[in-house]
């Protein structure tokens, strides 16, 4: 029996119970966790399954947050339309950034996404409606479908939980779909996938857009929860954080990054009062992860559960020695739900 079969229902039940025990956990904090968990899993679609490391995903998260704010506050749209506007913006931006970034590979792709995200950061710094350093404040939560008042934390909590779970389910479906298998095949051996007739660039771009759109959905929800969209949402620090979440949680699993997001966000929440220490500790965890913990939590759990004798034999490296790819460096555990 896979532990995921038990753990996931337990986790969902626990999450459903959260609003009734505000003395134990602060529901708004859990909402932030949910947004970041969706963000990390959406990001990992690109990193873990597509093998493309974007270093600018905060651009999608933050743009969606700003545009949701603009739609609900200044255009007077309902919150669900705000979410749609934010997600659509992120998808569109993902298409543009993705189309440029996939022209190069590996570290160049990382540098290009970082640079483009920095450009988007400066644009939001200057646009009139963003409030520059003050951030975009007083975004109304409004009434869902014009009927249900979202000002109540408990009501909003269930909306956020529902949307997050739906988003995670969609990511799970994407990974296990024929599309997801082709994406993994491209990551493993791009020339072979191309020679089999797959339009590689189109698949990569599609994955980029999906990842950006779901990241945007997370950002849009965050704007509704905190009624604020700020420059920190588009800053490269957040792009780095989301890489850490995916790496720490385990980038070869669907839900591992959610675990990583919980740890990183929790840590930042409790260390918040110590200023520079948050950055220092985050950086130190980052370095430890890269040096000795590249499989992440999910990877280690899988390795512990499967006795070494029944583990699939490590595949022969298909890339020339000295130029190994993201996927072949640690023997990859089977994809975990």
């Amino acid at each position, binding site marked *: 029996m896979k532990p995921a079969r038990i753990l996931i229902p337990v986790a969902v039940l626990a999450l459903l119970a959260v609003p009734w025990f505000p003395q134990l956990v602060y529901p708004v904090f859990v909402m932030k966790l949910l947004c970041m968990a969706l963000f990390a899993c959406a990001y990992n679609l690109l990193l873990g399954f597509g093998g493309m490391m974007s270093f600018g995903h905060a651009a999608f998260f933050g743009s969606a947050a700003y545009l949701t704010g603009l739609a609900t506050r200044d255009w007077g749209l309902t919150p669900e339309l705000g979410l749609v506007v934010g997600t659509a913006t992120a998808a569109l931006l993902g298409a543009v950034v993705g189309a440029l970034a996939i022209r190069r590979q590996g570290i160049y792709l990382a540098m290009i996404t970082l640079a483009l995200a920095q450009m988007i950061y400066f644009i939001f710094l200057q646009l009139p409606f963003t409030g520059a350093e003050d951030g975009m404040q007083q975004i109304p939560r409004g009434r869902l479908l014009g009927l249900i008042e979202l000002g109540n934390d408990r009501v909003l909590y269930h909306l956020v939980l529902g949307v997050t779970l739906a988003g995670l389910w969609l990511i799970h479906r994407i990974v296990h779909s024929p599309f997801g298998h082709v994406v993994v095949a491209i990551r493993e051996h791009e020339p072979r996938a191309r020679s089999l007739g797959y339009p590689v660039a189109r698949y990569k771009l599609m994955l980029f857009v999906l990842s950006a759109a779901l990241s945007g959905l997370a950002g849009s929800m965050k704007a509704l929860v905190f009624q604020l969209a700020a420059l920190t949402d588009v800053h490269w620090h957040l792009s780095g954080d989301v890489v850490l979440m995916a790496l720490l949680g385990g980038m070869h699993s669907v839900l591992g990054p959610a675990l990583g997001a919980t740890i990183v966000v929790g840590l930042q929440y409790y260390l918040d009062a110590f200023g520079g220490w948050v950055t220092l500790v985050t950086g130190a965890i980052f*370095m430890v992860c890269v040096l000795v913990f590249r499989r992440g939590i999910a990877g280690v759990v899988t390795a512990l559960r499967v006795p070494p004798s029944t583990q699939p034999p490590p595949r022969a490296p298909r890339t020339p020695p000295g130029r190994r790819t993201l996927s072949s460096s640690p023997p990859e555990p089977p994809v975990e739900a």
Partner: protein
Amino acid sequence: MEIFGLPLPVLAGQIVLGLVNGCFYAVLSLGLAVIFGLLRIVNFAHGAFFMMGAFGAWMLQHYVGAGYWAALLVVPLLVGLVGAAFERTLLRRLYGLDPIYGLLLTFGLVLVIEGGFRVAYGTTGYAYSTPETLRGVIDLGFMVMPRYRLWVIVAALTACILTWWVIERTRLGAMLRAATEKPVLTQGFGINVPRLLTLTYGAGIALAAFAGVLAAPILHVNSGMGSNLVIIVFAIVVIGGMGSVLGSIVTALGIGVIEGLTKVFYSEASSTVIFVVMTLVLLLRPRGLFGREGGA
């Protein structure tokens, strides 16, 4: 005299300012390219070491009372040693893995260094005074040039040319190029390649710290000064391609001037123009202006 409706001194002043920035970009992207060429590591921490250089100059003045010229000599050496130690103890463990992991490790190092400096010195900037001999201005006839800016351009270009000369014209450079092309074979000839890697990383870091000391009197010395710069340098590396030493210098200077001119004609875009150029280059010539065919 006016050009495009602007008095010449204003235009020339911005071009010089752009050249000064371009010089910083050049020294940094040069170090980045040399490190990448040999170690296959994209050194995200380059900006953080630049910041350490500037802070080092300020600390030497503040705590020891050492002057600018001493700092220009000592600080790059010390920061370079820190870099070499980092390569020896940590970075070395990632050789042979995907270069992405090197980028991530050095990114973690950026957070550690920046966080550390923020804990110790806060986020406010510190002023570093220009040395006596380089104060004042020189009248060039068509414009007035601050002496310190002229010195920065001369010093940075000298550093760049010296680096180019070492790589292309000396025995050490020949070993370096051999190790870049065929590390195993080079080691077979009895050349200590691991030591060469440490030396290269240390030298690249020392260059970054040298730029940091040069920048200390111009920019406010603060913990965040390196990160924004390193992102611009990444864009420049994408534009120029990491294939050639001279290519990266020329690209960096050119970008600096374009940025300076944008400040004159359309200042709102001055912070984004570099990324627009990068986008155009990616559309028209994806491998970069000086990139070699077949590079990723």
